[in-house]
């Protein structure tokens, strides 16, 4: 089978662009199935690969920077690992309109470097490392610490071109910042992990780099004091760029982390207000801003749970969690958006979470007050995604029809749990 695939796709792309590989995704996961790594040099070549895969009924796994390993297939059948690595062009940077059109395989960090001289930036941050690509980021679709100030990732997409599972290329949206022309299919593609189509290129909204930025940290020995400070800031300082509660595994302090961005006068005035609201004039800690992850993953072996809950549920959640468990996890909660990330070493993860068949069951003993009452976004555990809330049958049916309409031979990845 592998030899046959190598031959057929070698004829399409040339032998240099077709390689037999085993995926190295940095995970201690079950051994991945055999696959053929395709490295198309252009959008046309990538589309030709999908068309051939459709004709041959061979499954395709799109891959960007290989930085979201949970996206990889774990089924036993051979498949095509279709790389966007060479789709890395900036097609148009309309600096005066604050938009950029790029190919999907362009690395986020590289694009950021190209935008910087114009004083512009992407309205989201790269939280997956230097290899992470625009296309991969959109396929995974996670919101991050810029969500409160700039809006959600899916709202930053002005236009998109994708190839569907049958090889048809379709465009949605455009290059303007406001658009209600036809269905907004980009909303469907973002976060669908390539289930309906592989992103070829996209037009993104940009932001001007703010004139001033800083980060202020307040450390608390007691979780309750940290929560109170967070609640005070949320209620009385609405212009913060972001407001997060963080805790690093094995370390004692609970940290309220505030980011300020904007005009110099704003950053200065807001900083003063934050100190006045939380702690008076003593113990000031003002740091340069780094918009990336507050508590970066300690190791690629660590497991992560991301959940979206109501901001008002964060305090009850933390107060209900087992204190020993809490001391062993890294925890970041965005107090404005309710986005929660919890990371732990594999042993802690296994001890507390893995034995249960679903996270609803796993977290139930830890969160008696909140059982079944918050939405799991995703969790990486042996790269399996667990749905937190059961999808309704009617919604599943719509997703299923969308899948079969856009990918009639099911060559593309399965839709994420809905």
């Amino acid at each position: 089978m592998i030899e046959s695939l190598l031959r057929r796709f070698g004829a399409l792309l040339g032998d240099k662009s077709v390689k037999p590989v085993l995926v190295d995704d940095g995970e201690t996961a079950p051994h991945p199935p055999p696959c053929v790594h395709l490295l198309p040099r252009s959008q046309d070549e990538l589309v030709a690969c999908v068309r051939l895969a459709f004709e041959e009924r061979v499954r395709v796994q799109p891959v960007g920077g290989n930085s979201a390993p949970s996206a990889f297939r774990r089924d036993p059948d051979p498949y095509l690992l279709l790389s966007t690595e060479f789709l890395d062009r900036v097609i148009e940077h309309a600096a005066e309109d604050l938009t950029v059109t790029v190919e999907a395989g362009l690395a986020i960090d590289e694009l950021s470097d190209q935008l910087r001289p114009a004083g512009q930036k992407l309205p989201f941050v790269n939280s997956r490392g230097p290899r992470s690509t625009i296309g991969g980021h959109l396929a995974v679709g996670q919101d991050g610490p810029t969500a409160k100030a700039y809006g959600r990732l899916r709202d930053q997409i002005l236009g998109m071109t994708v190839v569907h599972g049958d090889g048809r290329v379709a465009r949605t949206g455009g290059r303007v910042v406001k658009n209600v022309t036809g269905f907004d299919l980009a909303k469907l593609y973002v976060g669908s992990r390539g289930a309906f189509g592989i992103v070829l290129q996209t037009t993104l909204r940009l932001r001007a780099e703010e004139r001033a930025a800083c980060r202020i940290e307040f450390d608390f020995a007691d979780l309750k004091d940290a929560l109170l400070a967070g609640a005070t800031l949320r209620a009385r300082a609405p212009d913060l760029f972001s407001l997060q509660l963080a805790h690093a595994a094995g370390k004692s302090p609970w940290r309220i982390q505030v980011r300020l961005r904007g005009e110099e006068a704003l950053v200065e005035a807001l900083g003063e207000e934050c100190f006045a609201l939380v702690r008076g004039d003593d113990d000031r800690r003002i740091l340069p801003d780094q918009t990336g992850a507050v508590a970066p993953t300690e190791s690629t072996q660590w497991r992560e749970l991301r959940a979206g809950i109501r901001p008002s549920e964060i305090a009850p959640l933390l107060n209900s969690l087992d204190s020993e468990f809490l001391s062993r996890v890294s925890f970041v909660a965005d107090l404005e958006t309710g986005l929660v990330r919890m990371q732990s070493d594999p042993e802690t993860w296994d001890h507390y979470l893995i034995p249960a068949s679903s996270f609803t069951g796993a977290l139930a003993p830890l969160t008696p007050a909140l059982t079944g009452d918050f939405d799991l976004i995703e969790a990486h555990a042996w790269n399996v995604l667990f749905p937190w809330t059961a999808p309704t049958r009617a919604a599943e049916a719509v997703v299923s029809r969308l899948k079969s309409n856009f990918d009639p031979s099911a060559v593309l990845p399965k839709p994420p749990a809905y």
Partner: protein
Amino acid sequence: MVPPTLLHDFERLLGPDRCLTDPGVLLAYECDGLTHFKVRPSAVVFPTTTAEVQAIVRACVKAEIPFTPRGAGTGLSGGAVPAQGGVLIEFARMNRILLVDAENRVAVVQPGVVNARLSETVRPLGLAYAPDPSSQTVCTLGGNAAENSGGPHCLKYGATTNHLVALEVVLPDGDVVRLGSERAFDNGIDLRGLLIGSEGTLGLVTEITCRLVPIPARIETLLAPFATIVDACRAVSAIIAAGILPAALEALDERTIKAVESSVYRAGYPANAGGVLLVELDGHPAEVDAQSARIREILLEHGAFNIEAANDPVHRAKLWKGRKGAFGAMGRLAPDLYVQDAVVPRSKLPEVLPAIGRICDELGLPLANVFHAGEGNLHPNISYDGRDPDQVARVVEAGRRIMMVCLEAGGTLSGEHGIGLEKQEFMPLLFQDDDLQSMRLARAAFNPQELLNPGKILPTPRACVEVRSAARKPA
């Protein structure tokens, strides 16, 4: 026509006062705010609960009768025009605000709640609902969801899709689904986002969870008159290029100013101006003050005669009165008003506006521009007499040519009014067959029988070929 058994079902379900069939009464429901397209419905029904909507939909499906949702009927693209022989489902009586959760800054409402009423309700809590279409005192949140409505303040806050975090939807087969979550920052497949802006063709929204925003501590509105609207647009480009994102950045041209100033919407705009900009800044006082200083500098550099700043609510309301009343003021100039809606990259405004002016001059039509300049969202308005077929033909031709100019500048067909019936024929000018086919496939996944609001947005495949051929002919 609707079969008598279906009407009987409706009357049994809703009672006679919530099921209209009198042809005289039905006249009021044959069009929306765009009066070019008129189809009288066979019946209009007024549900008050999700269960009633579900029952109505199932009855229509069983009888194979098309059905169309309608909010306040303020749409401007014919999206709420019923199908021939179809039923209109009017949501005006599903108008309850079900929950306001100030701590989590969300509200749960029925779709018939009027946009402005939500902001009025949450104002005492220091909160607001951000999208503010011009019709916000009348239009409903369900209609806003269908159209992904915009408004002046969407420049900073985003359009409706950014503010509706969850929807309860009756699907075209009568099933009920919840899409999205009030715990807003999840990811995965976003059927909610696909449904918003689908012009009532994918599902009927029966409950909406809206995100609320804190009322800014400081709001300042600047009025800047210029010699020409093109000068004003150059200032807009400079503000955007400087990386400043005001809350609103609106423009009115000379003809609009004159119409406003001779109407009850008089706002004191300078009579000698060829165009004015309204710039609104909001947020922390330190941010507003700093941005205001930078923007004033840019405005004066680009030829503003002077700058009038309003910091108190009464003064601000006065400056906004002309902008908000512009369409009403222009409505007095002729029996009919054609409001075009298109978007161009904002840096292209200085070249596109004169081109639109030339089109209307050539066709002998009076043009007035009032638009969301910060987003490049144009609203060329043409006053005309709809009783005169020649004028109507010229207005239609102007609309077509204006569309072509905007598309050639890298723009799109609609920024906030939608496609509806009005712009279906232009879709092939922007999208290829495969693009349109993808949209059809998406619609088919929700609405396979096409009984829900049929004939909107997407042209027939045959029409695609015809329109592209026509577009190639010299104007």
